[in-house]
């Protein structure tokens, strides 16, 4: 193809400097791709006018109601004709990557080739903020073809609109000693059993799941997802004396205090004289030198991960692993950003049964959301409106003090049936 390049003085500026330049990439594509020539024309115009020129619309693939982000240009001449006609349609296909974003070189090439072959622009984002591979720039007429090709390769569209969205899980078990469960399996269990809600958007608004293997939360799940599944453990932190001594050998007593002990949010970890005595119940004790040891009061540890992070391998998550589940994280519309809050303090995540339970819970939460949220209301907003307790009751989840930072500070509640509620607690305690 031979459409000449537009002048792009602004974009050209972004070819300087050491960081990889997307502009250089666009230009390379534009050499043999008219769509890209015109895309650059429109983008350069935006840089000059400081205005965006896209509008949405309706484009999709057979059988699905979402997954494609349609873009039509609004940059038109006096006659209403697009100024950059080849890029007048510039849709994105959101494609779900393998959980954990693992690729082979072959897979990358196949995806990229398929994109070009089916009429795509050649531009791909690895990845969008929700975790999709974003194939950016295709005309309406080619959308089905491209999708079919990807689908044949074993790939499927992700979410868009008022739907279940593409999910993300951390590298986790694949390469991280902090991992407390099989994140990829959890993601695939939950997402792949609920694809109908992804492909045929009919929820009140979007719903996102994210999966992090431990409370470091490398997926920002608590902030960015309606339901966050975070790995954790119930028993004591494990310690490896050899690695602990190695770590200390490379550091000092001051480092131990300033970098480890003093940063513990609950003062659960203490530097002690190495007295050789056995550790008390619930206490992890590890010598870091002949003189000193560290003692962790695991009942007071809040699994913040800090000491494990600073002393990798020397301290490791316990063996009784599972997940904490938080619900209601979301962006700033319209009540202000909100983090997810704890609804399941702990749940095992090992056996097939455990994953089945996670799947059931996810489904129940989706159902509750579908039935109870107002239009364009996220889960966090719904909970804010109806109250956490009503949400929990709707899902038959038992309340727990781990769900709160502190009990209420105001007397604005009606407690006719205090005694019955108290009885429930005593019964649970007795049963436990």
């Amino acid at each position, binding site marked *: 193809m031979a459409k000449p390049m537009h002048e792009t003085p602004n974009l050209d500026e972004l070819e300087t400097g050491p960081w990889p330049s997307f502009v250089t990439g666009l230009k390379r594509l534009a050499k043999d791709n008219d769509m890209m020539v015109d895309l650059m024309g429109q983008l350069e115009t935006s840089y000059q006018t400081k205005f965006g020129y896209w509008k949405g619309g309706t484009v999709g693939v057979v059988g699905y109601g979402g997954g494609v982000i349609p873009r039509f240009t609004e940059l038109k001449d006096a006659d209403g004709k697009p100024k950059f006609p080849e890029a007048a349609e510039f849709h994105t296909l959101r494609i779900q990557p393998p959980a954990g974003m693992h690729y082979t070189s072959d897979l990358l090439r196949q995806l990229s080739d398929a994109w070009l072959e089916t009429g795509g622009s050649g531009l791909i984002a690895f990845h969008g903020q929700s975790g999709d591979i974003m194939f950016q720039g295709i005309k309406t007429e080619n959308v089905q073809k491209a999708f079919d090709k990807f689908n044949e390769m074993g790939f499927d569209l992700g979410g868009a609109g008022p739907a279940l969205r593409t999910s993300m899980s951390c590298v986790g078990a694949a390469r991280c000693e902090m991992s407390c469960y099989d994140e990829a399996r959890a993601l695939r269990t939950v997402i792949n059993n609920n694809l109908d809600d992804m492909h045929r958007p009919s929820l009140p608004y979007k719903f996102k799941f994210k999966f992090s293997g431990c409370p470091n939360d490398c997926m920002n799940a*608590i902030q960015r997802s309606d339901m966050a599944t975070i790995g954790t453990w119930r028993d004591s932190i494990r310690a490896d004396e050899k690695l602990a001594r190695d770590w200390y050998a490379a550091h000092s007593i001051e480092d131990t205090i300033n970098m480890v002990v003093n940063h513990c949010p609950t003062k659960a970890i203490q530097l002690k004289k190495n007295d050789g005595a056995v550790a008390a119940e619930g206490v992890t004790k590890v010598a870091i030198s002949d003189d000193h040891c560290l003692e962790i009061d695991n009942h007071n540890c809040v699994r913040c991960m800090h000491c494990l992070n600073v002393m990798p391998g020397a301290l490791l998550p316990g063996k009784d692993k599972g997940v904490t589940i938080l619900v209601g994280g979301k962006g700033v519309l319209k009540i202000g950003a909100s983090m997810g809050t704890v609804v399941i303090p702990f749940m095992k995540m090992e056996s097939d049964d455990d994953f089945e339970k996670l799947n059931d819970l996810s489904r129940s939460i989706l159902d509750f959301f579908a039935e109870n949220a107002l239009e364009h209301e996220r889960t966090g907003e719904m909970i804010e409106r109806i109250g956490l307790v009503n949400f929990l009751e709707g899902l038959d989840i038992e309340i727990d003090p781990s769900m709160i930072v502190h009990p209420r500070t105001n007397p604005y509640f009606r407690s006719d049936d205090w005694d019955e509620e108290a009885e429930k607690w005593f019964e649970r305690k007795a049963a436990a």
Partner: protein
Amino acid sequence: MAERTHETIESGAPDPMPYMHPVMKDNYGKWVFHSHPKPGVLYHRAENGAEVWTVKAGTQRQMDHYTILKLADIADQFADGYLRFTTRANIEYMVTDSSKVEPLIKALTDGGFPVGGTANSVSMIAHTQGWLHCDIPGTDASGAVKALMDELYDEFIKCEMPNRVKLSTSCCEINCGGQADIAIVIQHTKPPKINHDLVANVCERPSVVARCPVAAIRPALVNGKPSLEVDEKKCICCGACFPPCPPMQINDPEFSKFAIWVGGKNSNARSRPTFHKLVASGIPNNPPRWPEVSEIVKTILGAYKADGRPWERMNDWIDRIGWPAFFEKTGLPFTKYHIDNWRGGRSSLNASAHIRF
């Protein structure tokens, strides 16, 4: 009324200097040291070496003429005729001669005034009016306090708590007693019963409607008369409508219960000031001695005493061990009512994976 001979002088708050012990007046603003020689006794030293011992004793706050005379006499006998009251209705006598401390303690103790309430003891309970004087009380304050202080007597005269313990008792949710380490507040559990015959005459209806924090009150015509109507589903039984509209009777012998709140803290020491938090409710309003209240208060104090570290106030202790452990150690039930559903309640939810197991 007899003929008035006096013309009002709007004198305001009196100057304390004429009533202040000379050693305090002379060293005003010049103190440099204090210590706690023993429970109920404070020692202060001034720049110039001047010394003063303070002996502190509990009173019943609502005092009769004769009790007052007794307290005045003790001041004359031991303390140069000076005394002061603390913000918690304790009395303080200042002496400049250490040899007077013990005789003074004896006189007070013999007179029925417990010496204590200093430092890391349980001080007198800040309290309110109750049936003695208020127009909206759900219980009696002086009585509940007397009953409870009888039980806490030992903790008042000894200093065995991790840090100071400040209690309060209030006879309605308005809570004139204030935030405290342990606050005991009566709580209504049923919506007001409306005497529709009286509303039209007694209540300013628009302002009553405006008072309700959950907008549960609507104007209504009842039996042809203008009255008010309460949406009982919405009503949170706060009682705010009762003072401006007494025909909306909120008090009910059966359905007024005590609630107990812990961890309020007003000082800026260590952490910022914080509000107290609900821990127990549904406790019967059981005069004359409210034993169920004392029981729970003692349980909480016992757990704090056993587990708190030196200088940890109630809130500091709970911050360290966590709320699940608080409910564990006190055996108090955790209910859905502990989870805040009032405005801004979201900020009290656990938006983190920080959990103790």
